[in-house]
């Protein structure tokens, strides 16, 4: 400050303590108010992430709380495991089988709820009801539905003279069963978010479209869907993260919770849990957690890139670039 003194007439500096305090108050208070979150985040978020990274390079003994540094060995080990690649395949398969039908269904239900219904609140709360059920409880309910011999679905199929479905044997069918549990819980949640976005669309657009003679479907594809773009991207990102971390549903899919005898429904988090808490090998589990972190991060970045390009094109209202140049000139 003192070296590059401005030539403007200097104001008289206030040096009394109370004045100084009040200036600090003005400058520091906002940071103080938001600090609890960041302090909490540092303790329960940042520190564990960093500590996991440290452990992932060590052969760690949980009980004795010690480890020896072994470098990238555990990352190499994980990547060499056929189970890891099976788990990755299963995770993406379950993710696709759950997210796509779920969003289509949510979009449809939201569009229906957006219309003038009697007892609106009742229907809207109704779709959220499955979300309130704990995932493990959902698992217990669907175990009865998807049991191989005495399950509800297979019982009905057998009664109709059809072949029962090998829910716990065939990878594809086990993924369908698990995706059903996920859809049961999350469809209502996504419906409500999409519904909220739909309600924010200006009603005059629809009136104008009706006057112009556009049908319901045309109105949906030309007005509703484009307006939902940002919300849809949010919903897709959150369900991607959720889908890659899927744990509860496959965990309770059979009595062992280890992804099946042939790893038919072993997901990445399930494998991580088994290495950590089943085999007490926290070094490998930590390495696995970091690999998962990197996978989610890279998919998140891809999502972000898509989001940016879509939002920028939205309505052709890009931010003019002249501003930047003007700033340079001013300096």
């Amino acid at each position, binding site marked *: 400050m003192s070296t590059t003194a401005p030539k403007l007439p200097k104001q008289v500096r206030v040096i009394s303590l109370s004045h100084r305090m009040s200036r600090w108050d003005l400058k520091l208070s906002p940071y103080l108010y938001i600090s609890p979150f960041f302090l909490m985040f540092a303790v329960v978020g940042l520190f564990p992430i960093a500590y996991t990274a440290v452990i992932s390079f060590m052969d760690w003994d949980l*009980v004795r*709380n010690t480890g020896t540094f072994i470098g990238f060995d555990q990352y190499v080990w994980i990547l060499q495991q056929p189970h890891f690649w099976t788990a990755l395949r299963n995770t993406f398969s379950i993710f696709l089988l759950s997210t796509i039908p779920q969003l289509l269904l949510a979009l449809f239900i939201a569009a229906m709820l957006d219309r003038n219904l009697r007892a609106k609140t009742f229907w809207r709360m109704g779709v959220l009801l499955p979300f309130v059920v704990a995932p493990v409880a959902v698992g217990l309910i669907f175990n009865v539905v998807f049991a191989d011999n005495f399950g509800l679905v297979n019982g009905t199929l057998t009664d109709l003279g059809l072949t029962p479905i090998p829910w716990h044997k065939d990878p594809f069918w086990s993924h369908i069963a698990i995706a059903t549990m996920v859809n049961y819980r999350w469809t209502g949640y996504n419906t409500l978010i999409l519904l909220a976005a739909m309600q924010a669309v200006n009603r005059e657009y629809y009136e104008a479209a009706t006057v112009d003679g556009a049908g319901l479907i045309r109105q949906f594809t030309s007005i509703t869907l484009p307006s939902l773009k940002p919300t849809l991207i949010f919903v897709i990102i959150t369900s991607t993260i959720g889908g890659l971390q899927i744990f509860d549903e496959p965990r309770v899919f059979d009595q062992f919770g280890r992804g099946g005898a042939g790893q038919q429904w072993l997901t990445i988090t399930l494998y991580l849990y088994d290495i950590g808490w089943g085999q007490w090998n926290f070094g490998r589990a930590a390495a696995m957690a970091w690999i998962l972190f990197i996978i989610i991060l890279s998919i998140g970045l891809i999502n972000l890139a898509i989001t940016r390009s879509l939002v920028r094109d939205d309505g052709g209202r890009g931010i003019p670039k002249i501003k930047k140049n003007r700033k340079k000139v001013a300096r």
Partner: protein
Amino acid sequence: MRTSRRTIAAAVAGAATIALVATGCAAGGGDTATEGPITLTLATFNDFGYTDALLQEYMDAHPDITIVHNKAATSNDARANYFQKLGKTGLADVEAVEIDWFTEAMQYSDLLAPVADADKGRWLDWKEASATDAAGNLIAYGTDIGPQGICYRSDLFAAAGLPTDRADVAKLFDGDWNNFFSIGADYTAKTGKPFIDSANSVLQGMVNQLDTAYENTDGSIVATTNPDIEAAYKAVVEKAVPISAYSGQWSEDWFASLSSGEFATMLCPGWMLGVISGNAPDVTGWDIADAFPGGGGNWGGSYLTVPANGAHVAAAQELASWLTSPETQLKAFANAGTFPSQVKALASDELAAATNDYFNGAPTGAILTDRANAITVATFKGPKYFQFHDALQNAVTRVFDGLEDEQTSWNNWVTEVSAF
């Protein structure tokens, strides 16, 4: 504004002080039993038969001791808690350990207080042997064991033309596993129904009769080269799978089959009797035979351990010793059916007189005592036993489900366990 900040600072400082004091208290240590009123914590899971009334007996005899009993819902919860706190602080003064993860705890035997010499010799030899570490210290107090007999459905046996009387059935099953499998194959051929509940319980029964399973006592791994393991796998896949209702136990379908009475036999440790009568109350005809293929076999059972860094180690040892004494264990057996592992308890009249109405009034006490005496082998289970065995069970399941053939599934198991 200034005042409020100061208040926050004071509150934070206060909280920190309290936290420090609390940690300071927890870290305190003493080792005499006569230091005035103390509280001992006891942590178990499922049902050990340690009722409040039983613990009150001890508190009445030791007025300066209060026992707080914490029960975990499942043995897995207890396992997670045990290994997260062992070597740090926070474990109970007396902690129960299940045999399935006992070998993992044995790796940390130096963190556990050894059993006093006076109590040695109280338990069956093999029960003590598997709790003795390399340094010769006995580090756990045996509670119960799981000697196995064969549970059978006399009504289904009669329909298939097999004997129904307990003694005749015992004679029928008196032999090796091949004898058992051929009886099963005949039954399944005649009735078209599964003979035994699960193929993996047979695998469990066979592995529990081997001296060496997957690891040697010196820590070397023999899983894939041990001819006994390969033979057991082959026998299970070729002979047990065709006569089994399921590959494994405890599934939704397995419970449904149990309660509708689909299969005719089960391998029965003492604690299984309660599982059967509890889940199939409407099925009649269950009985238990004093026989087991290939000699005796143990399945399950637990230990009590005393973490060496506890606050009241000596008092905790005294309590653990009392809880696992023959007299107390007999009371626990009456409470929860946990079959005693103590030599004196096994010889008692009380045990010999125990019968079970659900199992056609069978003298279960006498039968299981016979079965316990028939056990000669304690399989050495290394720290990775659980992983190896679980993977082998998966291999059997893959064949059972028709996902892979016998050889492919074995090869995949070999690949899988080579990575451990």
